[in-house]
Structure formats: C-alpha cells, structure tokens
C-alpha cells in the first residue's frame, strides 16, 4: 500500500475533492454507517503550536469514526525542546499510530514529516503556508450553502497577506469556472502579488481590489472574513494598528444580498460583531461543523477505509 499524505489542497484532484464532499455529505445523512469505520485505528495529533479548535475537530472526527486518538498538545515543549527533529518525531509516531495530523509553526514542517513518516500525514497548518482541511471545510460550506462552486462573487476580507486560509481557498476555487474575487484589505495586508499573478491572472480569473467592505458588500455571494493574526507579525505596533481594520456588523450587512454566505475560519476577535451570529447569513459555526465532516472523509480516504 502506497501511503498518501495531504499537505496542500492542491495535492487533491478535483475528482478527489468531489469524492470527499460526497463522503462528507453521506456522513451527515447516515452517521451510524460510519460509527465503527475506523475501529482499532489511531490518529496522532501532533501540535507544535496551540490550536485547540483544529485539534478538537480532528479528534472529534476520529472518535466519530470509532477510532482512537493519541494527542500531543505540547509537542514544542516536549520532543522538540529536547532537540528532536520533525523527521525523527514523525518516524517515532509512525510506530504508534495509523495516521498523523500535524500542526507546526514552521512552513513546510508537514512535508518534512510526510517524507519521513511511514503513515499518512495530514497538514493541520504549517505556519502561514497551508491548511488544507480548513479549505475543505470552506468548500463543503460553500457547496451546502450555495449549491455550486461556479459563477460566484467571492469577497475575501481582512488579512489577505498572511492569511493562509485565503490563499488556499483562492487556489481551490480558481480550479472552478466563472468565479470572481473581490479582495478587501488594508494596503499593508493586500494579497501577495505572486498569488495574483500565479493563480488569478494565470487562470484568467477576474478580481477587484478595494479597501472598502461597504462598497463591495452588495455584489457578494460569499464573504470570507479573516482575523489579523498577532503571531504572523514580527512587529507588535503593526499588529495593533491593523487588527481592527474591518468589523462586520448588522449595519454593513444591510447592504448585502439576502442569500449571502458569511464565512470565517475562526477564532474571531473583533471582525464580526456578535449581533451578526443570529442572522441566517452567518455560516461560520456551520463551517466548524463542516470541518469535522471533511476531516472524517479525509481520514477515511487516507486510511483507505471503504464503508
């Protein structure tokens, strides 16, 4: 058996993503069918930086498949603190578990683990680089809320420079025809030119750039809000200046389409006012749940479990 890892959303073909979406939707419809699918299989969650929600999502996913979990929540202060390399950690954990979900602050860490591990590795976030299962959650949310991945005007708002979820979603959605992006950010946090050039321009995907969320709002089918993340800044002053650039509240939402889908990878800080939570257009907690279903589908696929 050739072990397969997922480091980047682009490691999955469109057909494979469709397959995962179909499995996730079948899990939602028939949860009992999957309740013992991964019995006697173990997922190791190796988290070298804290991310409670991603870890819980993976762990809940594995438990709902009837599997068990080996959880390392402070990998950075245990093995890594003793000087163990990521490669050696991956080899060691391969002796105990059947699949690894790894979060690490360094970009490319999951690929290093995948090269060394004898078991599949799922990248649960490698610094500011990739976070494919977040994108899978985003895709299932768009599929369930909008029905299709085509002919949508997708607004991306906030930190488009360091926001890996944004880059990954652009990469994923660029493979479907007819979509248009509206890039809403402060000047300092604009989408990097290589993403614009290598992904948007290269695929002939139309996009507009603006600093005004209000102006962009009426035309959007999907609004993807992001948090300005303190840990991505070397300079605290820059973070403080930019952290509250955009706040979505009911006043701004009044100009939006009635079927707008508001998404956020969470956790939020101030970007979405609490009052928005009760609006039917708020989809960010559904997104969390969708993330669990897609992680279940991915674990099944990588462990080659047929249900």
């Amino acid at each position, binding site marked *: 058996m050739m072990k397969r890892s997922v480091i980047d959303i682009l490691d999955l073909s469109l057909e494979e993503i469709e397959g995962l979406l179909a499995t996730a939707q079948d899990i939602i419809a028939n949860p009992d069918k999957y309740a013992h699918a991964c019995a006697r299989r173990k997922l190791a969650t190796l988290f070298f930086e804290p991310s409670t929600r991603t870890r819980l999502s993976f762990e809940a996913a594995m438990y709902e498949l009837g599997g068990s979990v080996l959880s390392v929540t402070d990998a950075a202060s245990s093995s890594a603190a003793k000087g163990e*390399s*990521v*490669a050696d950690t991956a080899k060691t954990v391969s002796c105990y578990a059947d699949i690894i979900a790894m979060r*690490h*602050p*360094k*970009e*490319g*860490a999951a*690929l*290093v683990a995948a090269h060394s591990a004898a078991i599949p590795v799922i990248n649960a976030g*490698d*610094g*500011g*680089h990739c976070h494919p299962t977040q994108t899978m959650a985003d895709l299932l949310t768009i599929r369930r809320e909008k029905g299709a991945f085509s002919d949508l005007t997708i607004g991306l708002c906030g930190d488009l420079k360091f926001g890996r979820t944004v880059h990954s979603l652009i990469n994923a959605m660029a493979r479907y025809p007819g979509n248009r992006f509206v890039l809403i950010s402060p000047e300092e946090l604009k989408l990097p030119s*290589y993403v614009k050039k*290598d992904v948007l321009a290269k695929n002939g995907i139309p996009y507009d750039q603006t600093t005004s969320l209000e102006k962009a709002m009426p035309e959007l089918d999907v609004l993807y809000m992001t948090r300005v993340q303190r840990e991505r800044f070397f300079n605290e002053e820059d973070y403080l200046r930019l952290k509250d650039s955009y706040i979505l509240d009911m006043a701004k939402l009044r100009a939006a389409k009635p079927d707008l889908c508001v998404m956020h990878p969470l956790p939020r800080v101030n970007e979405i006012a609490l009052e928005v939570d009760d609006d039917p257009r708020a989809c960010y907690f559904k997104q969390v749940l969708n993330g669990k279903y897609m992680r279940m589908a991915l674990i099944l696929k990588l462990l080659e479990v047929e249900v």
Partner: protein
Amino acid sequence: MNIDAIQNGIVIDHITAGRGMRLYELLGLDALDVSVALIKNAVSHRTSAKKDIIKIDSDIAINFDVLGFVDPGVTVNIIRNGALVEKRRIDMPERLTNVIRCKNPRCITSTERAIDHVFKLTDRKNKVYRCIYCETKA
C-alpha cells in the same frame, strides 16, 4: 590572453560574461588542489560577444545543476588525452538540491537538522525556483 590547452579535464564554456566568478564559488573550485583558470570577458570567435570560461585541469565531478541554475546554456566540454570526448549544453534543472539555501526564516529548513534544501523549477520562462517546503522564491 592565452591559457594552455588542458590534457585531461573540463572546460566550461559560453558562460555569460560576469557570471564566471559565481560559478567558480558555487562549484567549490577554490577548494581544488589542481590548476583552474577563470577567464573573464573572453571574446567569442563565433559571435564576437564577451563570455567567461572556466578551465579545470582535472576530470572532477561537476554539479551540472549549479551550472544550469546560474547560467543555463553554458556548455561543458570533457577533455581526455587532449581531445574533446563529450560536449554538453546545460539546461535549467527541474530540481536543485543543496545548491542554494531557503532564506525564509519561517521555513522548516531554518530549524530542522540534516535537511536537504530543495528547490523546484515552477516557471521555466521566468526562471523561477521555489522552495519545496515553503514555496518561497529562490
């Protein structure tokens, strides 16, 4: 200026004028205990344009990836017993292993021990190489 012909060794020819010294350093020729000539701004007999040439008076193993990365289009001539036995035009390699290092401080290569620094060619036309770990441009 005349440099004697070599009997057994390697001539790297058609180096873009000015890139000879970079190649000399990246190929580690300074560490060799054999005669090495680096000729700058030689005039091509064929085109009359300026070029650099490196002559190595020994049949050493050359890292062709370094040549293809720094100056695609150079030619490598292998000389044995005073005669040309092989001539190769060097193109851009698809992958570069341990030729250059990733400069991104957030990349895993900045902390992981014993890791190869690997770059892949992502855009041949614009000669763009990216780190396979963090995708930072070389």
